[in-house]
């Protein structure tokens, strides 16, 4: 199983790529293409939302970042891809969690460091996807970043940020460019399927999404 999280949605349009292209539209379109290609390769694909409204199931409430992490953690996927888009740079930017995979990470809130045991697996997945993108001739940037909610995911997880093809930001809306990137990612995930392993260091207890504060404040 693969989990895809098209970032943003609904009233949260993400970054403004151009006057007519919002980040949420690019991420959702890329997710649809990737879902089709993965399904064709025999994957079971779960998306945190498959419409622009990005609401909780059977509820008008908007999907929070913790909700997205909860959907991912309950699905137990072999890979979680958080899809973003930006007008800066070019090609594809792959980010794995900044958490320290070994001891020493501050653990004041286990929900916010749940990814730590999976960081090594996430970095292997990052390398695998990076290799496939390079072979497809797509410029690549690999780094580490703490992007919500990647640090709360209990699966090999990456932030996949689609940047323009060259210097033209409007290329982010180009279906053929999105298709090219999606094919490279899908090809890499086929190889990854047989390599995914449980993490070396499991947390004492797998955290669940924290119970929402009645006041609406996030813990």
């Amino acid at each position, binding site marked *: 199983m693969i989990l895809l999280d098209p970032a943003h949605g609904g009233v949260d349009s*993400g*970054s403004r790529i151009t006057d007519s292209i919002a980040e949420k539209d690019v991420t959702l379109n890329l997710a649809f293409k990737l879902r089709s290609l993965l399904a064709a390769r025999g994957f079971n694909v779960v998306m945190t939302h498959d419409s622009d409204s990005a609401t909780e199931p059977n509820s008008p409430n908007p999907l929070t970042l913790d909700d997205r992490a909860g959907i991912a953690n309950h699905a137990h996927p072999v890979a979680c891809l958080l899809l973003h888009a930006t007008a800066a*740079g070019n090609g594809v930017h792959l980010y794995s969690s*900044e958490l320290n995979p070994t001891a*020493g990470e*501050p653990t004041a809130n286990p929900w*916010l*460091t749940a990814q730590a045991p999976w960081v090594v697996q996430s970095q292997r997945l990052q390398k695998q996807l990076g290799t496939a993108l390079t072979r497809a001739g797509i410029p690549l940037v690999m780094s580490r970043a703490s*992007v919500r909610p990647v640090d709360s995911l209990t699966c090999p997880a990456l932030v996949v940020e689609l940047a323009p093809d060259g210097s033209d930001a409007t290329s982010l809306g180009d279906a053929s460019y999105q298709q090219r990137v999606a094919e490279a990612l899908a090809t890499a995930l086929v190889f990854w399927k047989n390599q995914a392993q449980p993490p070396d260091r499991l947390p004492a207890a797998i955290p669940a999404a924290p119970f929402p504060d009645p006041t609406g404040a996030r813990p």
Partner: protein
Amino acid sequence: MISRHQRILFWVLIGCILAMASLLFWERERARDRVSALADATPIDAPYTNTESITLDLANDSDGSITGVTRQIALPDEATARARALLEHLVAEYALPGSPHPLQSGAAIDDVFLLPLPLNGHAIQTSTNPTPTGATPTSLVADPNALQPQSPGGELAVIDLRSNFVNAHPSGVEVETLTLQSIIGTLHANLPQIEQVRFLVDGQPRETLAGHADLLRTYPSRDTTVPDVAP
């Protein structure tokens, strides 16, 4: 012979002239007092004795790098005020024309708090043996998840950002991450006792800076000029 109504008009005009002259004199005195107050050189803040060499970790959007640059600025001696002044200088650099990491000008830092580690937290431990009255006794035990220092004297820096700065911040994984790394790296370079960094916005926790970078996490203080590349 001057008519009566002309005499009345004359004295009314004389009265108006005198009133106008009094008003002008009073306004002149007020303006003089105002200028004198502005020119008052009495110090309000504690004096910053000398300029000193500090390192600002500046971000560059074009290549996603962080570079340490040296500046000569005057800073207060007190650590909290020093951290705040450092970060204000850092953000002011980004507001300059031609900045490689352009951010909105204006006050960005509401306050900085330096807390000694470990943080003294307590957790409620529930006993498994109920009392004879049937109540479940509880007791306070040391919080096992309390943030611990890596070395004696280590501190947690809590940076309270202003919402107008956060709301105007450009959105994107890289640009947001660079801002946080720049802040963390600058604190690390100049205040080595800071081991961990947390962020608030207007005194409240906030999930992300501008939709991407995590503001709930406790960041370890580190040298961000060294690229944090994946293996």
